[in-house]
């Protein structure tokens, strides 16, 4: 039976070459994802700003300014929308109040029914 010769330890130079190949693989993986995955591009951009923020680009003043004006030129539409939201809230208040009233009427009726029932039972006993 022939014994297998143990593999020689890789030299430092061998390990360097292997490390360079690993770097190529790592970088290729990055480039591949950058080309195929837009979200990865956003996340990598955030990481390059030191942030692990996910799902959206890191908030930047210039981007925000370009995206939307802070105060629209005509704010009448916004005023109307805001007033509508307030009315929406008032309607909810109204609904909640009606529900509360209904509830208290129901409770009062139930209480009265119980009282009448007790009264009837007492009379029957007599």
């Amino acid at each position, binding site marked *: 039976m022939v014994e297998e010769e143990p593999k020689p330890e890789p030299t430092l130079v061998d390990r360097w070459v292997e*490390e360079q190949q690993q770097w190529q693989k790592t970088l290729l993986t990055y480039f591949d994802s950058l080309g195929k995955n837009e979200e990865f591009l956003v996340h990598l951009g955030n990481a390059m700003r*030191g942030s*692990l923020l996910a799902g959206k680009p890191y908030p930047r003043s210039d981007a925000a300014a370009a995206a939307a004006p802070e105060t629209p030129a005509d704010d009448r539409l916004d005023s109307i929308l805001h007033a509508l939201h307030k009315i929406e809230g008032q309607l909810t208040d109204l609904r909640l109040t009606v529900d509360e009233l209904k509830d208290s009427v129901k409770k009062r009726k139930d209480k009265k029914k119980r009282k009448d029932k007790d009264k009837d039972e007492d009379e029957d006993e007599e």
Partner: protein
Amino acid sequence: MSEEPPEPAPVEDRDRELAAMLALSQRSRARLERLYDVLNSPGHYGVGATPTTVVYRENKLRLLRLVDEHGQPRAGPPVLFVPAPVSRYFIIDLLPGRSFAGHVAAAGFDVFIADFGTPTSEDRFCDLEYYVEGLVRRCVRTVSALTQRPAINIVGYCLGGTLSLLYSALHPETVARLVLLTTTVDGDVEGGIAWVAHKMGLAGESYDQPRLVPAAEVKSWFEMLSPGSNSLVGRVRDLWERLDDPPERLRDIRTMATWVDDVVPAPGRLLAELYQKFGPGKNALMAGTATVGSQLIDSTKITMPVMSVSAEKDTISPPEGVDAIRRIVPHADVVRLPGGHVGIVAGRAASGLWKRTVEFLAAGSTAVEGP
């Protein structure tokens, strides 16, 4: 006379240098590979960790009710969490196993969370009254109606605590117990977000002609609180160092970072009013002159049990400004915990706060057992 060429370094020295460079290269590559995995993992961010149902909607607000694994709410006393309307709600329900609201629900309470959503252009007109007498009040009424309890528990965080405090002074009969987390009461205490905003021009916000303050601007105020660590170089260096952490820890960090960096735009009118009433030099809460709409805030009306929690290393709400509540609500239980503004609520040591909160809430009820 020609110079002699330098003697080559001994072989051992060269090998040692080469080995050190190889180790550095391997470590850097491992960090990049870990970063790749983290950036590609779906993670858990942008939503709460615990299952919920939406029980009420108004404008951008959603009132969430935590449910168990069978989709049923808990039977215990109701607790309403009110987070700050200028940040995202899910910090109090961050990760499975690291959720403040989830912990309180696990103790048997019927937990609700007000998610104020992301304001848009028309919401720049929203003022303090809209939040306190509108959204918060209707959340309380809805919770009260759903649970058939005339008074509920409220837990307010940061600016959400300010809204809760004002609400409790106006409608004390509807609040059973009040917990205020890192809620600034004394605006004259130097430092914190109010002072930074003051120095960066919040005084210029107009109440009458409000704008929607962009998220980036709100973010810049927070960044100013610790400029060194928030510089681009500082942030990148911190992230690079953190990439030695195990992937699970990095995913947690990512979830937290997503909350910290995902600020929302703020209604200019609300900020202008907060500044004019509670900002440095105004201090209406301490002076007893605070108003919501036309109603004066009388802090003596706050008779329900109150617990106020400050964080030792809080740079957003300095603890001295938070603990000042004992001067306007003398019966308040004032607690100071180690940690920062976010860490005490959702950090790795947050269980200290969760436990204190459950104990405080449970003290008002015999129906709930502590965890």
